[in-house]
């Protein structure tokens, strides 16, 4: 039995949408999803609701729960993009051969200071990555991590560095999680 065969939903999808509208707006605002990005999230969730092959007993709770997960995934994805950008930016600074000496020294000092506030394992990992130019496989070998887990650990360390740059007050709480 599909969701739409469920009398609760079938009788009035329009009424259901009208009813949940304020809650959807509250949820998106609460999760600070920019309006232009809500379109895909909402459409996917509502399509899943009407396509679902098994009965959904409480469509409102299901929809809100699903959207909540989608909002969290949205932020995770945004974060990943930010971590990658920070990583790329730092790698680019370090690789730039023509930086004036003073600027290079300043950059090294700032990076050292930023890394210095991270947990030890992130410090070592990012130092190998940025200062020695090691790739993830080499970092894994050097630090004794398994090749399978190095990508995850690197992401966590990049997350810690990014948090330090963007929201320093929030840094301690989330490092290594």
């Amino acid at each position, binding site marked *: 039995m599909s969701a739409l065969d469920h009398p609760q939903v079938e009788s009035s999808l*329009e009424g259901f949408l009208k009813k949940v509208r304020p809650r959807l*707006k509250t949820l998106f605002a609460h999760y600070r999803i920019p309006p232009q990005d809500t379109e895909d999230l909402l459409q996917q969730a509502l399509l899943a609701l009407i396509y679902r092959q098994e009965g959904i*007993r409480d469509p409102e709770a299901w929809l809100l729960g699903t959207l909540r997960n989608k909002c*969290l995934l949205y932020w995770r994805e945004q974060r990943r993009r930010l971590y990658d*950008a920070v990583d790329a930016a730092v790698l680019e600074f370090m690789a730039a051969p023509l930086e004036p000496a003073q600027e290079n020294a300043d*950059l090294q000092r700032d990076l050292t200071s930023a890394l210095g506030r991270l947990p030890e394992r992130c410090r070592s990992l990012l130092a190998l990555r940025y200062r020695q130019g090691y790739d993830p496989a080499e970092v894994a070998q050097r630090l004794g991590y398994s090749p399978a887990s190095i990508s995850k650990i690197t992401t966590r360390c990049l997350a810690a560095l990014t*948090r330090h740059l963007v929201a320093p007050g929030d840094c301690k709480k989330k490092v290594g999680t």
Partner: protein
Amino acid sequence: MSHPTPKELEGFVLGRLSSAEMRDVARHLLVGCPQCQEVTTGLWEPEDIFEDPQTLSLAEEGSHDGYDEVLDRVFERILTTEARLTDQRSLGRKLYEELMQCPAERRQLLLGNSQRFRSRALCERLIEECYEAFFEDPRRLVEVARLAVQVADRLDTGDCGGEEVLASLRVRAWAHLGNALRINSDLMGSEQAFTKAESLLNGNRIPPVERARVLSFMGSGHMAHRRFAEALQTFDRAATIYKKLGQWSLLGRTLLQKSLVCSEVGDDEGEMRYLRRALDLIDPQADPRVFLAARHNLIYTLYERGRVREAFALLYHTRPLYLKAGDRINLLKLRWLEGTVAFGLQRIDQAEAAFREVREAFMELGLGYDAALSSLDLASVYILQGRSADVSRVAEETLAIFQAHNSHREAIAALLVFSSAARINRAGIDLAREVSSFLKRARNNPDLRFSAPS
């Protein structure tokens, strides 16, 4: 020092600037600019972002008009899609009814040649019907699942609106066929269908809930082939997905399947533990048939452990669920269990009446193994009553019926031994139990050899 604008900082936190701009802002923040960090900290998602949306304050409502335009657009599209879906479902039902009214040969012709029957809606309907037939009529289940496979294999991405939908339909159809053949004891056919389903599962993006469902079917397939470690592993994969999705009732269903594996390998403690946990998780409102199946198994397990009075009490409380389910197989299972528990309580007349009814129904349905097993139960009643002529008659009839539907030589040999013993008045309760136990095991293990008791 020049600071990035608030817009640039926002673009940075959302990862939306060009790489050069990202680099410039990152460089700036690396210095540790408190002024800009104050802005970016405000843009960083709040700590309470993980809060349950059900607890969101109502006071927050009504002040987010920026979303109205998007909501209007999406709602309009969804209402259009829903209307289209309703039409498709109605078309699926219509095509299904038309198809099923035709004789089998005509169905093949229609599915092979008619464009009308090359329909996603029909395929969805056939798959839905597999769920119903599973409980109603196992032989019809095979027929419906074969039709679903036939339709799914003829569809292309254009018919389905995307590769993912097509792959999902195909994998579900093949998994249902594998399951249907397993239930009907065609283990070789079942294995081939599951192999096909597995290859589709591995090579395509399938929605997680469908993936888990197919894995559950495949786990049962492994179990039928007595590959218990693989079965447990496959059920665990399904359970992990259900857990991740918060599908607790489906997780309970998977634990029920795991309890069956435990039962097969003689892990009594594990069986009972999984059964109890399954019963805690399965939602009796949403999944009444599965909940009933778990209760049924628990009652039977209690009976087998000699806890007949507990089994009787639980059966008494479970009877309304069987009656509510109302389908033929469940009503037969109830009657059979009533006979079994009555036999355990030495209520011989009640047991005889129940076993006779059940046996006749299974013979009529052509379910050879179940007919044979209920016949052996009935024979046990006659043995207790000293009715040797009836024992012999039941044994002969059972052998004939079983041979008509099954070709498993060792199972036939076991029934032949029982029949021969009955003919010379040497069939006792122990032999009936031994043959019954062999048939239960041989049902899923064609390689098992029957050794006649000395």
